[in-house]
């Protein structure tokens, strides 16, 4: 496939960057063109252990939206949890429901807490209307179930992300899901009363106040 010459030059600049700062600058320029040809390189950057560059690459991928979803899903790195966390973060930002299965699994079963955290937020941020209408109710039930499970995670930050995710999800549930909404509110009230971490209690109360 022929690459856009301008994009090729920018990709080269990323490949040849020889310092963290040069990398950051090169990734910034590559992300800024918002060209689909940049996607594979932006995904590679997620594995470079350069947080500044990774944040920029995630923003670039998120801006490319649905074009980036399949490459992100295909290139998920099973061996590098740092890269996986950034990729899940990009998928979470995009909110495309094709990522649902990956997010369900990552939120509840990934060994890395940064991956579980990003996935929990992602489950709250899905754009459900991109699914065929008939599939929405079942898919939403799966998301609610996974997030409720994530509120029992041993890591506070995963529980925090699950609460934030539940709030977002509850606000988007189809009207037919009134019972799910109720279950979410009950769980949030439990966390407000019982979670040993004050930040989780506060975030649960904030979520409850938004759900009215």
């Amino acid at each position, binding site marked *: 496939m022929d690459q856009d010459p301008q994009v090729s030059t920018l990709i080269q600049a990323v490949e040849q960057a020889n310092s963290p700062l040069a990398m950051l600058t090169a990734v910034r320029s590559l992300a800024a063109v918002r060209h689909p040809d940049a996607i594979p390189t932006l995904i590679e950057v997620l594995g470079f252990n350069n947080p500044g560059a990774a944040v920029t690459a995630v923003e670039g991928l998120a801006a490319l939206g649905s074009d980036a979803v399949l490459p992100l899903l295909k290139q998920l790195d099973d061996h590098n949890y740092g890269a996986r966390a950034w990729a899940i973060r990009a998928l979470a930002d995009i909110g495309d429901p094709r990522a649902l299965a990956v997010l369900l699994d990552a939120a509840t079963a990934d060994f890395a807490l940064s991956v579980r955290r990003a996935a929990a937020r992602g489950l709250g941020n899905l754009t459900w209307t991109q699914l065929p209408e008939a599939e929405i109710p079942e898919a939403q039930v799966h998301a609610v179930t996974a997030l409720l499970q994530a509120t029992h995670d*041993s890591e506070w930050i995963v529980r925090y992300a699950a609460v934030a995710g539940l709030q977002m999800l509850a606000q988007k549930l189809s009207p037919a899901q009134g019972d799910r909404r109720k279950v979410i509110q009950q769980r949030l009230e439990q966390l407000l009363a019982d979670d040993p971490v004050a930040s989780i209690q*506060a975030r649960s109360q904030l979520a409850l*106040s938004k759900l009215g």
Partner: protein
Amino acid sequence: MSSASSFENSGLSSASAGVCTLSLEQAIEYLRGSDLSLRVYAAWWLGRFRIDDIRAVAALSEALADEDDRTVAGGYPLRRSAARALGKLGNQSAVSALMSSLGCSDFHVREAAAQSLGILGAQESIAKLTELLKNEVAGTEASLEEPELIQPYDAVLEALGALGASAAVPVIETFLQHPVERVQYAAARALYQLSETASAARQYGDFLIQALSHQKLQLRRAALADLGAIGYLPAAGAIASALAENSLKLIALKGLLEKQLEQSEGDFLCEESVKVMQMMDALL
């Protein structure tokens, strides 16, 4: 200062209960046994699972005087593990043995002892910690890794701040100019905690905000940990936009949020708290 490299653990603590196979009796037997690797493991295990039992505290305190486990360079690995574990157990009867360890020749034993004394809230250790800061304790050797560190200054400063050692303020102030930046940050953190008024404390919080834009990632991480520990609310925006891992920024913001929650007594949704939570949400 907490090590930034261990922030991302597996999070499998409930699933990995297989590690928790020792019993208290077995651990103490290992600790007093002759197999050095089992002794170190038993000390770690007692701390990891916070086995607060007087027999465990006694065995660990004995281990602080161990002479068998030595590195080539003269370090005392078992003593280091035991000193760390005693902080985790939270038992006051460990205080006098830990205070003796502040005079150990091994830099890392003194470091672990200072940290544990701070965690235990051991007011009686303030004088000895201050002597260490002034480098007045005989027979103590510098760090092998960082020879300019004659004492574990950051750990000692952190402990003095946590213990409310206001008499040590003049000595602590001299460390704001220490050549090792991490030590400067620890001094600022302690001075923030020891300031009598919020307006006097502000300069130290602002000093740590400046540190968030240091060129070295390792130092930005240190500043994040310090700002989280003091819960300095005006740092929220700078923390959120610092160039560092989101995981560390979230931990720091949690420190700010919980300080704020403490001060607003039961009102979880005051304006400042909600703002910090919004910043945390954006980092998830």
